[in-house]
């Protein structure tokens, strides 16, 4: 069996999940949607993380009772074919979640760092490494997250703090016009956070059981919610929300607004490379999770074919944004932005509901 699951501990698991959530909440959010109703993302996005976490609690409870793994729960709840369909749907959400930050980074790299370099050349640097990391398995991905999470956190803090002379509280205005808008942003934002959290459920074995998954999820959610909130708050203190809603990766642009005369201005490219490490690790994590889920679902013995297939799907989505048929790709992107959460949420939630009903029936019998 070459499932390459391995075993990681609380620190590595938390670092991995938190890094993925942070990447989603800081580098790959949809600026138009996120900043449409004002500069309140420092509240709505942490809330979105908590909403995503609580949405997966029923699945965790049933998994804790049944102890079969997520793919086992799918089969138990929906039957063999239904289980396969559920696993594929969840995997699709992982593929989308892996492609999204990668696309954002590619846009930044092609437009702001390697001006004039064809995007495909940049893809060829990032994607093979991502596939290699995903292929190495959950254990390696978890350890990489542990190694680089500190560095990424320091670089983000340095970037945000370097702009502190430019902070101005008036830019926080306007707050959301009403609670409805605020919660709408929070709920729509949860689309970014569900796949990385659900992926931990998939890798339950590598974390040593559902109980450990629960602790990891809680720790990662609270750490990342705090970190995302702080970074978004810093961004909100610097940019008016109308600027933010049209800005590609505002954290990267922070140095262009502040410290023009200082040497820190020149660190922007170093910072983005460090952040790119986080993006690659979280992307590899989601690719591996999708591959592992599919491999287990189809009772295969080696995760390699699934890793290659899922990576090809991610490659397709990433390059679609740059293709001539961009309009279609944009349509696919906006579809996933709206309904992607359903892909990540419905299979585990539905499996939890059906599974708990079946379990109750079995216990009565």
């Amino acid at each position, binding site marked *: 069996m070459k499932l390459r699951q391995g075993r990681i501990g609380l620190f590595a698991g938390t670092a991995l999940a938190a890094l993925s959530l942070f990447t989603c909440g800081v580098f790959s959010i949809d600026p138009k949607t996120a900043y449409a109703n004002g500069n309140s993302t420092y509240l709505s996005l942490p809330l979105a993380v908590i909403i995503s976490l609580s949405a997966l609690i029923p699945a965790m409870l049933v998994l804790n009772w049944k102890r079969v793994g997520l793919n086992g729960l799918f089969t138990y709840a929906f039957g063999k074919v239904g289980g396969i369909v559920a696993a594929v749907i969840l995997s699709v959400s992982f593929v989308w979640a892996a492609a999204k930050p990668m696309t954002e980074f590619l846009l930044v790299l092609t437009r702001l760092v*390697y001006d004039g370099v064809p995007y495909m050349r940049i893809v060829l640097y990032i994607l093979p490494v991502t596939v290699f990391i995903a292929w190495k398995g959950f254990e390696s991905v978890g*350890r990489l997250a542990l190694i680089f999470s500190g560095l990424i956190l320091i670089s983000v803090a340095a970037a945000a703090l370097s702009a502190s002379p430019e902070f101005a509280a008036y830019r926080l205005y306007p707050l959301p016009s009403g609670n409805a808008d605020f919660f709408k942003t929070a709920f729509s934002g949860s689309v970014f956070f569900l796949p990385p959290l659900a992926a931990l459920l998939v890798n339950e074995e590598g974390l*040593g059981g559902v109980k450990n998954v629960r602790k990891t999820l809680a720790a990662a959610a609270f750490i990342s919610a705090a970190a995302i909130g702080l970074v978004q708050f810093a961004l909100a203190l610097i940019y008016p929300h109308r600027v933010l809603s049209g800005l590609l990766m505002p954290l990267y642009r922070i140095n262009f607004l502040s410290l023009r005369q200082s040497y820190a201005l020149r660190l922007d490219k170093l910072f983005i490379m460090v952040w*790119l490490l986080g993006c690659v690790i979280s992307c590899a994590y989601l690719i591996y999770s999708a591959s592992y889920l599919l491999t287990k679902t189809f009772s295969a013995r080696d995760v390699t074919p699934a890793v290659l297939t899922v990576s090809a799907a991610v490659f397709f989505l990433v390059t679609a944004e740059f293709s001539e048929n961009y309009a279609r790709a944009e349509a696919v992107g906006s579809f996933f932005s709206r309904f992607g959460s359903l892909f990540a949420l419905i299979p585990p939630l539905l499996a939890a509901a059906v599974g708990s009903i079946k379990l109750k029936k079995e216990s009565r019998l």
Partner: protein
Amino acid sequence: MKITDILGFDREKKAFELYERETGTPDPFAPWRDADGKSEEEPPFPNSVREAYELFEKSFNTDKNKDLILRRFLAGGRRGALAVYMNGMADDTKVNDFILRPLMTFDGASISLDELLKKTVRIGEVRRESSVKNVFLAVMDGMTALFLDGEREAAILETHGYEKRGIDAPENEKVVTGAKESFTESLRTNITLVRRLIHERDLVVETELTGGGGNTRLAIVYRDGVTNEALIGEVKRRLARIKTGGILTSGMLGQMIEDDKNSPLPQILSTERPDRAASHVMQGSVCLLVEGSPFALLMPVTFFSLMSSPEDVYLRKPLGTMLRLVRYFGAAASVLLPGYFLSLALYHQGILSTEVLSTVMASRMMVFEPIGVEMLLLLFIFQLIREAGQRVPGNIGQAIGIIGGLVMGQAAVTAHLASPVVLIIVAASGLGNFCIPDYSTQLAASYLRIAVVIAAWLGGLLGIAAAVLAAACHIAGLKSFGVPFLAPFAPRTSRKRPIVLRGDIGMHERPEDMMNTSFDGRLEDGE
């Protein structure tokens, strides 16, 4: 309720066992095998001295093999006896004065092997052996075999007396304030060097034969009851699997039992310092000493132990800490500096200030080749000088280093083959490389540096990021006898000592958590 109960993982005793174990018990250790791993048929034990004589004559081809001494005599003037030893391997004085003379002049009533060993032979280490193959091995090892007519066993008498090199100062792991002893090629001497430093009753030294044909004598050193039994079993299992014949040195043996043989990084620590070996054994490691090799192999090993030097603990805490910081910084600079400079010069000039950029441009004004070629050329020359300096003896090697470094560097700049800035970058990176204490890790870092330079040449910082991630992923996945290579950092294990910085000497009282020794309380239930 403690906070650790709420946040801590479920840690069953065996759930986070770092050693990867196979099922079943280890194969019988050191079986007598040919190159295909098949057991060799053992000849029957000779019934008389004459038969023993003929057996040795035939097996050792004594017509041509003149250094095997077969000495027939009458023990006590009555009973036929045969002493067999290898000329040059055994000490003639010991054989003549303490075995042959007392046996020939013995005047006791009964002459049996038991009586002779009890009353006549004046040798400390004596054992009885009924296996012919073990008698052969003992004779080849410098022992003397004594046969007596009608006895079904031979006596093996310790008469080692071959020439060996004395104990010298270490050549590769020099320290300013530490011990000046290094291992030698003699297994016995090396065991003594370790034993002299460890005065624990639980210290076990198992001497065995391994390799195809059982040709290599080695000693497995560990602390019984402290070292994880799973680790000892795993080491023995891997040794038993070795089928390669010929002479096995510690370098070859290490490669044969490593987890990942294709990795450029060593997963076994090779040291020539007895104090370092003893320190690791005290912490629960297994040490292998091989006959003919002046190096001890220590396992398991992590990246951080490869980066530590005995000097760290010999110096005071602040100095040891600074030394380590300089070492880690040097290692990072060694791998990343040339590639980083190249990526800035080629792709990200904006990061450099105008002054630095103009200096670089001015220094490269007359250099005709591209900067990537220039960097690779200088790195190649650096590797050449290093290799040449190591292959030639003593002072000439140092001279080559100086000539290579100064004269060739100056000549290359004058001939516009290289610019001074790039030369400085390569030299600084080379110095950083020498900060890495372990030779294999040094080499791995120097080749990784070339990979990073190529990646930077092709893709700038993006290339470096890709290369670093790929390398980090490989290292994160490495294991040494089941212990993750980046432990105790990734995965994190409970520890009181700092990982990179040097902690208080008092913190060294317990072995590392990752060693899973008996101190962790995980070995009690049959582990």
